[in-house]
């Protein structure tokens, strides 16, 4: 390789001497490229209502909700499995409706209610009925897909609290599991529906 190692190393040292900045995934305010707003475009600072709390966040225009949740709000329960709206690991509720948060621009959910897996527990750490059912039935294995499945199921149960096995399978069909005991996943979520009916 004719890359000059000396220049290369010099360059790296020079790069390393640049000022440190915050450990965000995306540039913070006063960013390096100074993302300036064109007239009429959205304001970067916005209020997000997540799990019942309203928080002010500086969000880039191209930032997805999954990234905001994970890297700005510390809500890492929402997983990114594909980042392309294919696997469902990032599923959250927006106004009670399941969405792939990897494919929602954060600026489009201003003023809407967002619920993540961290927001399901009741006061005092009481598990949501669907969470409890998943624990009881040991619904998942590696569980990376679990938050997405649970959020999809919780969202579906809001419109159909008494689903058949078939209906619930369709409701969570936008979520992939690679350990793939879909049978047990479905059983546990169905149990969750039963628990929910019992608690309400």
């Amino acid at each position, binding site marked *: *390789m*004719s*890359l000059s*190692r000396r220049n*290369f190393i010099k*360059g*790296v040292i*020079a*790069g*390393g001497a*640049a000022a*440190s900045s915050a*450990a*965000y*995934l*995306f*540039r913070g305010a006063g960013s*390096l*490229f100074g993302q300036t707003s064109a007239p009429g475009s959205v304001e970067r600072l916005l209020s997000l209502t997540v799990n019942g709390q309203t928080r002010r966040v500086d969000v880039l225009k191209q930032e997805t909700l999954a990234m905001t949740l*994970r890297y700005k709000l*510390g809500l*890492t329960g*929402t*997983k*990114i*499995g594909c*980042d*392309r709206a*294919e*696997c469902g690991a990032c599923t959250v509720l927006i106004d009670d409706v399941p969405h792939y948060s990897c494919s929602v621009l954060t600026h489009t959910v201003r003023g809407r209610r967002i619920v993540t*897996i*961290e927001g*399901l*527990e009741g006061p005092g750490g009481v*598990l949501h009925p669907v*969470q409890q059912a*998943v*624990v*009881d039935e*040991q619904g998942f*294995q*590696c*569980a*990376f897909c*679990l*938050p997405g499945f649970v959020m999809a199921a919780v969202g579906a149960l809001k419109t159909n609290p008494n689903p058949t096995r078939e209906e619930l*399978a369709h409701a*969570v*069909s936008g979520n*992939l*599991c*690679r*350990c*793939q*005991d*879909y*049978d*047990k*996943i*479905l059983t546990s979520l169905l149990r969750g529906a039963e628990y929910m009916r019992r608690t309400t």
Partner: protein
Amino acid sequence: MAGTLVGRNYTPPDLVAKVTGRAKYAEDFRAEGMLFTKLLLSPMPHARVRDIDTSAALSLPGVRAILTAYDLPDLDGQERALTNEPRYAGEPILAVAAVDELTAADAVERIQVDLEPLPFVTNALDTLRPGGPNPRLDGNVWGPPPPPREGAPPAAPPFETLKWTTEDFAEEAQGRLPMGKPAEEWSYGDLEGGFAASALVLDETFVVQSTGHHPMETRSAMAYWRNGKLFIHASTQSVAQTRGNIARWVGIAPEDVILICEYTGGGFGSKGGGAVSMSIPALLARKANAPVMMRITREDESYIGRARTNMTGRVKIGFAKDGRITALDFFIVQDTGAYGPLGDHRSAGNAASLIYQPPAMRWRAVNVATNTPPRSQQRSPGPMQGNGIIEPVMTKAAKQLGLDQVAIRRINSPEGKAPFGPVLPSGRRNHVTSAFVKEALDRGAALFDWEERKARAGKRQGSKVRGVGVAVGPHGAGSIGYDSIMTIRPDGRLYVQSGAGNLGTHSMIDLARVAAEILDVPWEKVEVVWGDTGKHLPWTCLSVGSQTTHAMTRANHAGAMDARRKLQEIAARDLGGSPEDYTVGRERVYRRDAPSRGLTYVQAARRAIELGGRYDGHDLPGDINPMTRASATALAGLGLMGVAKDNYGRDGVTYSFVIGFAEVEVDIETGSVRVVDYLGIGDVGTVVNPRSLLAQIKGGSCLGIAHALFQKSVVEPRYGVSLTDRFHYSKPLTILDVPRQMQADALDLPDPETPVGARGVGEPPVGAAYGAVMSAIADAVGEDVFRRAPVTSDIILMSLEHGRRMHEPLRMHV
């Protein structure tokens, strides 16, 4: 060994963290001043880096460091995380660390890499042609592994050049696998005599696809250095065994690696001993002097994330009238990708000799390298591919001989200490520890209402026709010789150190159930310590190949017996008599003849600390692994320590079996296949954790079903680039592609060669389902409709439409 814990369902202690989102996987960790890295991937399948111009990238504000192959330690020609001679499209060439991902990505775009294209090959057969291109500068096939030498680590097989002749390829046009000079072979018995004595000989070629592992969690990792030690949050299947690999990849001592991986978002073999890419954030963090997060994208994962070896196999089988196999001749061309070598082809040969018990068999293989993404073992590596190649032939033979599909498998199935594989230098063949395949077939046929379903197979209703299929999935199911560490501490709790990965199979917790059972500690008082090499873990098997349950229940059995012995000794020392006079139970060690005389575990733990020496881990057995020794030393003095190596004997090699039963419905107007019902039934030894075990059977079955129906990987032949970089291209199974209810069961017959009786279960269901579903499709629409997988609607429809097989006969990666 069933008891109050072993053989019963329980709620694993990690579940609440999982359902609340508090379980932290590698990418969930943050560190002060954390940088982000993005990879520059080779666009070419084989090239040489002539020059890299990073100046424009480095002048970008926020770019902190760039790591190239020059920064990586040499690994004796083995795969490294970055390369100057990319051998597959998508192989990382360099990594940029910057203050955020956007800057890192922008920087990657500003880098000029001058690549010189080199010859490449994506179809394994093409490199075997006379004058065919080689995938690497030094050859194209892996030779046979050198014979193992006492005390030395297994040497890598040689990499050689092998070309076949034009005559060898003569049969290619007929869709039959050319069989030129093999690189490896073995045989036993009278092959020709076997064929001569047979009533039916079938000679079939089958193309088994490659598929990406694609665990839901990609191989993301975050690393930082503190006081000269590397702290790395990564995703691995095997915590204990990954530490040494990371040390080697980074070029430091294993003691200087702290690996944290409490939760692993799946691996399926792709993260067996970690991932070589872990060295990128580690070395970048050192270079940039800041923590580095490497978030691996799904597309990255489809290149660097490992895949199953694809095999094109040809099998010639002779059958007697009653279906008994008289001779089996098996030839495999395995595509082992850009790196290697792998042994799937050997495992496939061994598995075939095991589940069909041919009296005469020949196995020949060529293990070919190509410029396609690197392979690793994937859930049932080898036997599963073998199932795909052979099971449809078994189904065809049954049909031609007028036999039942179950019957033909039953008559050939292994029993007891069944032999398998080649004749060893000792002059004998290996045998398994136990096999109850006939029982499993019988149980399964009954549970599945086989006869009833069989009766309606092949009958049409509207455009729909149904078929049933069965297959026997075998796989090696356990290793031996690992260590365990456990301590009974003065707080009255039993701490079991577990060096296995947490893949959610819960074998890494099940092993503690065995210890608790032996020591009779209530489950609430058991702490399993896992997921962090800073927490002093014992030398543990790789959590791959269905090993953990077998290997680690044995090790923990040994450790628990050691602790028990020490309890007895302490009691005898303090209360008189000989250790044999004492037994344990209800958290006490007490005299058998006077149960009131004894010590509580709390007392015993305190005494052990007072006594020191071997009782609290200051004096350790001589045969344990250095890692175990270091961990036990660090834990010494905390309580009564059980620490031991698994020295239990074993007569034979441990294998598990799962039988798959499938019913499918094929729409002959569209070629669509629906799996109507599925049953997996396991001959997997003693059931330790019933719910997890059935989950393994069903989950593994689903992977096999996906392989039968549509999961694939595709490589564009002209440019040698993977096309299946998205899920809707590679098509992993969804919840709507499986029966709404699946069945699974296990025989629960203990393996006689292991103290707990348990064998592994993760792998064998995959091949069982693969074979069973394809057999069922063959049963529904005809045995000759397909000779490749996945059996997609286009294949079925075209073949039915033309009345003959209508698909690419031999091409790979389509």
